[in-house]
């Protein structure tokens, strides 16, 4: 027989104290308790501890822990039309932003194409520019030689051009053909005024009004739903 109860014995005693031991194990333990005073002393100690804890003063809650609707995260149920209105408002916002972007970009694009025609870029516009240069050289050749340093090869080519027939009028007309050619160098869409908007302002105004209506409807619907929730909470009480 052990002098000091083992931890296993203490577990048995603890469960026995709480009535959680099976019948057979209870009978064996009761028999041991009768012949083992140390085991009985341990049981008494455990009993005392449990008694102390059960009699620990119970404090009242320092305040009420009831929940408010805000704490509980209660929100008014969203009206069914709300998602559609939100989608419409988002779409209107995106379209409105796009119209502003398109109208902003299009004048800039026209300005860039104009810059290419006057020698910054290449391609078709540059070929037309060369033609203009040749014509201008032909005209310039009629002027005093010392004022111009045009190559003689270009001079030779220019003499074969049909535009020779118009040589008399070319000095004064060099500007207008050039400007006409520059205009022709623009893509067809460039025929529109470079400062004109692609999306009319009326459309933008219409989108803005539609957006305003959607936002107003959303605000009103949510306010009304909140009012109904508060009314329902009052009725519950």
């Amino acid at each position, binding site marked *: 027989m052990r002098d000091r109860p083992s*931890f296993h014995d*203490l*577990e048995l*005693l*603890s*469960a026995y104290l*709480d009535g*959680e031991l099976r019948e057979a194990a209870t009978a064996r333990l009761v028999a041991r308790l009768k012949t083992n005073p140390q085991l009985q002393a341990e049981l008494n*100690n*455990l*009993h*005392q*501890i*449990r*008694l*102390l*804890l*059960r*009699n*620990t*003063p*119970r*404090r*009242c*809650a*320092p*305040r*009420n*822990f*009831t*929940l408010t*609707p805000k*704490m*509980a*995260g*209660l929100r008014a149920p969203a009206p069914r039309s709300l998602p559609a209105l939100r989608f419409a408002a988002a779409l209107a916002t995106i379209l409105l932003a796009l119209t502003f972007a398109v109208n902003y970009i299009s004048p800039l694009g026209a300005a860039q194409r104009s810059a290419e025609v006057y020698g910054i870029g290449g391609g078709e516009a540059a070929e037309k520019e060369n033609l203009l240069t040749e014509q201008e050289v032909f005209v310039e050749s009629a002027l005093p030689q010392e004022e111009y340093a045009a190559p003689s090869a270009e001079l030779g080519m220019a003499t074969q051009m049909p535009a020779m027939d118009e040589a008399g009028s070319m000095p004064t007309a060099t500007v207008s053909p050039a400007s006409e050619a520059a205009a022709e160098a623009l893509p067809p869409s460039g025929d529109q005024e470079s400062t004109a908007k692609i999306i009319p302002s009326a459309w933008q105004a219409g989108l803005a009004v539609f957006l305003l209506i959607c936002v107003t409807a959303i605000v009103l619907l949510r306010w009304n739903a909140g009012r109904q929730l508060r009314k329902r*909470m009052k009725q*519950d*009480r």
Partner: protein
Amino acid sequence: MDETTLIREAQRGSLDAFNQLVLAYQDALFNTALRIMGDTDLAADATQEAFLSAFRNLTSFRGGSFRAWLLRTVTNACYDELRRKKRRPSLPLEPATEEDEDMDSPRWLADPNPSPEALLDQSELEHAIQHCLDDLPPEFRAVIVLADVQDLDYREVAAALKIPLGTIKSRLARARLRMRECLQSFWELLPAAFRLKSKGRA
């Protein structure tokens, strides 16, 4: 309205029904939190958090002991709070400043020769018990608080803490053993209080 009806209404979203359950159980939850946390303010925070969590997860209660279910939420809230604080709550050994002298303080530690009146002071006994509870690891503390302070049976404690019955038996035995060893040092100081408590009980 009986508890089952209140629970059903609360599960349907009735905050009023839930708040009636709060009023019925807030003392038990607060006391559990207080014994686990060892601090009134922390216990109040854990209790509020437990009720918030209970309302949000009320649909997960499928029957059985609602008390055990609520005590589980407060125990979890206490564990979360302990992890957040990363501290083991303990009573201050002496007042922080002279102004704290009137607050509850363990005079039995400061004064090696307590008067007979002090020995029988309920608050001293409570302080001794709380001091020893604070010395337990949280998982053992929760078991002994639910089983011996809140008087839940083993199955309710197992359900509340979501641990096996065998683990409950083992942890409760160990916790009681450690409480006995801790309180042994106070037995010499508080023999009368202990004797009065054990008188006349089986």
